């Protein structure tokens, strides 16, 4: 029975550590454009006759709420409102998803992210004329001042996984999304500082509680051993 208490304590402590890891990444990315806060969820698993309960990390999933809008006045900056991802094509030709809308028109008329990835429309890369002004409407249609309509920005939603560098990868079936696009603005991180601090306190306190449980269980085993010895 003590063993069971010991391992319950241990699994709880491990889960609290994980929560600390998730909160720390949220706090580190409190100013990252288009960052989506991670949220950890736990599940209590109970098994056996003697009630062996274990707190286990079930999932770490992104909170998909919108981050705050920051007005930059730069025509190449795009912010999304509502669920969905922009699609970019990296140098190796693969598609990645992002909410970090920092693009600039290059000398071939493509809209490129700072790392060189190209903004993709429903019919391939958005192609404008070099050096021209352009406008993006709330539905995501791009219009060049000289070249005219350049296509609809490809936006998707569905299961994703992290790729790092503010990018995500599709992780299952994606469907068409229709968020609103705001040109001349950037979406900030959706990390809520107050929430992060609360979770931080929560994780430390959980850890402490589980430590107490482990210590108590240890003590009980110790006493049991002593009494058995007599």
């Amino acid at each position, binding site marked *: 029975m003590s063993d069971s208490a010991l391992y319950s304590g241990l*699994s709880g*402590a491990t889960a*609290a*550590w*994980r929560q*600390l*890891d*998730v*909160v*720390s*990444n949220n*706090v*580190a*990315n*409190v*100013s*990252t*454009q288009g*960052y989506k806060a*991670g949220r*950890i969820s736990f*599940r209590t*698993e109970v098994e056996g006759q003697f009630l062996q309960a*274990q707190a*286990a*990390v*079930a*999932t*770490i999933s992104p909170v998909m709420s919108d981050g705050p809008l920051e007005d*930059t*006045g*730069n025509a190449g900056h795009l912010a999304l409102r509502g669920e969905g991802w922009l699609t970019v094509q990296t140098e190796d030709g693969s598609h990645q998803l992002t909410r*970090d809308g*920092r693009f*600039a*028109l*290059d*000398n071939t008329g493509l809209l490129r992210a*700072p*790392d060189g990835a190209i903004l993709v429309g429903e019919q391939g890369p958005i192609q404008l004329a*070099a*050096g021209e002004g352009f406008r993006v409407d709330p539905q995501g249609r791009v219009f060049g001042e000289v070249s005219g309509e350049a296509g609809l920005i490809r936006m998707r939603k569905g299961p994703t*996984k*992290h*790729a*790092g*560098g*503010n990018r995500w990868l599709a992780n299952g079936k994606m469907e068409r999304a229709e968020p609103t696009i705001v040109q001349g603005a950037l979406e900030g991180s959706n990390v809520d*500082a107050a929430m*992060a*601090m609360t979770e*931080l*306190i929560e*994780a*430390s306190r959980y*850890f*402490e509680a589980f*430590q107490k449980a*482990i*210590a108590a269980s240890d003590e009980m085993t110790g006493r049991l051993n002593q009494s058995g010895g007599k």
Partner: protein
Amino acid sequence: MRSLYVAASGMAAQQTRIDTVANNVANVGTTGFKRQRSAFEDVAYQQVAVKSRDAEGGVAELGGGVRVADVERDLANGAFEETGNPLHMAINGPAWLAVETPDGGMAYTRDGALGRSADGTLVTATGMPLAGGIVVPPDATNLTIEPDGTVSLGRLELAVFPNPARLSPKGGNLFAETPSSGVPRIAEPEDGVVQQGFLERSNVDIASELIELILAQRAFELNSKVVQAADETLQTAANLRR
């Protein structure tokens, strides 16, 4: 242990942000200065196994913190200040004034505080001759710069870049072409109107820099709280064995 490193990356990123703000504020009085803003990105995620009895799931992703993605330049025009000096000019539009560097290359600037060298050549405030080599005779009494950059004795070379935010700063208000800025073309009249007798001031807005500073400082503080919490948790863990 991970959270300590993650929080440290957060603090380093906020430090860069503060450094950027400091440089902007220091250049609040620099003619033609363009403010910078720091941009961040999350870093590689590590997959960890999670306990799950379900068939699905079983893997969760833990982030490795943050890093500075780049420091972008905001190219909005600064306010125009009338100086009345016929050798001062401001460009209303995205064009850049081309300058010849001593090594024979080209550099570009928005600083239109021009002067005349000993032989009458038009030079920038730091003494670099303008591209095109415009020489003003010593006895010239009035010099006019037309809106398209035409001077009585030649024409100022104005350049437009496909992506000017990627020009590389060379100090002394000069910028150089880079592969990502693209190759410049000669400015058309609609690219910029030259206004004689004006200077373009820095586009740094002190109020927004102060807000940026407060945000950076608070974010730094939040990360330090994470360090504290991780440290306390480690201590608790160390006390397991008494």
